């Protein structure tokens, strides 16, 4: 199955934090946050970790070493994740985390990821990158919820469960090799 977001966006049209943030009328701060969210996976280098041989902290990474990405596959997609609309603005939501407590400052940022193909083996790493970047840049009152958009990935439930597991994510942050991969993935994120 192909990406359900059919358009390939021009890199120049993607939001970036280098520009003046677009203000929107929704929840305070949404505009600023959203514009950074879409760009954070905008990198030409995202497939480079096919070479990576991790002592994996996220299970599905193990599969990477068994199934190296062939060059054909790499050159098939010389387009950045941002341009492929792996994350698009309508798939970013900011909602109160505790609706029963109206004055609670807690907010849940939900980011839905649309993999380019339904068996994309990098979905977990991309999702982890998004989660890590958001956790590192948002104030602590935000709870980050990164998930695969429904119906776009064959093992979405499995990936979602890993990305939601606080302990696994915390352990992944302490894995230098894995963080190197994610840092590289995010390095062109402006």
């Amino acid at each position, binding site marked *: 199955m192909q990406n359900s977001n059919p358009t390939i966006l021009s890199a120049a049209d993607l939001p970036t934090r280098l520009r003046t943030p677009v203000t929107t009328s929704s929840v305070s701060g949404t505009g600023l946050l959203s514009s950074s969210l879409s760009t954070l996976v905008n990198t030409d280098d995202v497939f480079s970790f096919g070479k990576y041989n991790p002592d994996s902290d996220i299970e599905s990474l193990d599969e990477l070493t068994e199934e190296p990405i062939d060059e054909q596959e790499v050159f098939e997609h010389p387009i950045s994740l941002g341009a492929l609309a792996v994350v698009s603005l309508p798939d970013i939501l900011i909602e109160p*985390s505790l609706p*029963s407590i109206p004055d*609670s400052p807690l907010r849940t940022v939900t980011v839905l990821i649309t993999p380019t193909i339904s068996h994309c083996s990098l979905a977990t790493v991309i999702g982890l990158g998004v989660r890590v970047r958001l956790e590192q840049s948002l104030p*602590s009152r935000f709870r980050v919820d990164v998930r695969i958009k429904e119906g776009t990935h064959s093992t979405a439930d499995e990936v979602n469960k890993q990305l*939601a597991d606080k*302990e696994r994510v*915390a352990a992944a942050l*302490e894995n230098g090799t894995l963080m190197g991969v994610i840092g590289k993935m995010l390095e062109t994120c402006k």
Partner: protein
Amino acid sequence: MEQIHKITLLSDLTPPSLERTWLSAPHPTLPLLATCSADKTVRVYSLTNFRLLSTISGGHKRSVRSAAWKPNTKENVLATGSFDATVGIWRNDEQEDEDEGDGQDRDPEEGWAFSVLLDGHDSEVKSVSWSSSGSLLATCSRDKSIWIWEDLEDGDNNFETVAVMQEHGGDVKCVSWHPVEECLASGSYDDTIRLWREDVDDWGQVACLRGHAGTVWCVDWEGEGGGSTTTTTIPAGGNSSQISAWKEKHARSARLVSCSDDRTVRIWRRQPKDHHQQYRPSDVPSIIRPTGLEEHWDEEAVLPTAHDLSIYTVAWSKASGRIASVGADGRIVVYEEQFTTSSDDPLQTTWTVIDSLPGAHGIYEINHVAWAKRADRGKQADEEVLITTADDGSVKVWLV
């Protein structure tokens, strides 16, 4: 509308870690508390004056995730589990300063010596637990296995691997020994709870409890009704016949509480073996085996929904019978069990939330909750405190 809360802050522990703190382990008999931090250290605090006594560092290369005090020993022995895949055993032969000293001029690492590193797990160690006798240590990991180690207590820090159990289909998040029996409970990323016992000389699974719809983050046992605590672990509101029937039922049973990513807290009960005596390895000659060690467990109750996000820890007070839960929503919830008057079954009980305190650590997630004996100057006989541990490193002591 200012709600009056039953859970009130007694004190913070100072100074705290400045990084995420995962768990706080109260000492079984002394007024000491060990906390595990992402800064790779364990801090030992006094529960008498709520101040830092020692910082144990230099043993682990990554976050310390879990710690447990060895029971039944005159020494202070602490086991720690770390994301670096190892388990550390630490000893402090000197008596900790429990008096209200100023504590300022102490060497922070005084007394604590690293004694042995248990190597075996392939990835992060999530939880460690000592059996009630103190001779067995259970550890579990993201590698899906549970290891049981025997402390040979030969004065030479030797531990022997007794068993490696690999039945879980995902990370094993927690292990917890029955308060008296050598029966281990574990909770997992595979959404199940499993129970383990030794069958003559092999450890094996005796039950698998399904019901949670998400990772089981924590399990805890109900206290054994023996000794002086018998009267206090009875549900509230019972008459004398209910109470004696309750005690009798409990003598032949056991209960576990569990909490999960599915935002529920569940109670499980082991059904008495009516036709076979309760299995005790020493009771049976090895040739004549009981007709299987399988235990029958039922889900007895789902506690009232009180959390909006994942529930990370649940703690069953061995003194009062109350249950406390904490999680990602920053709430502390305390539940109490009462006899149901309207039911036909005189032993039917219901659980009610006696307090739910939101934002107990401000905006931060609460990773752990534990009950401990109150030890500060204001204590009354047998009074308990709740200790909560949060993502910002803060550890707070509460009265209920």
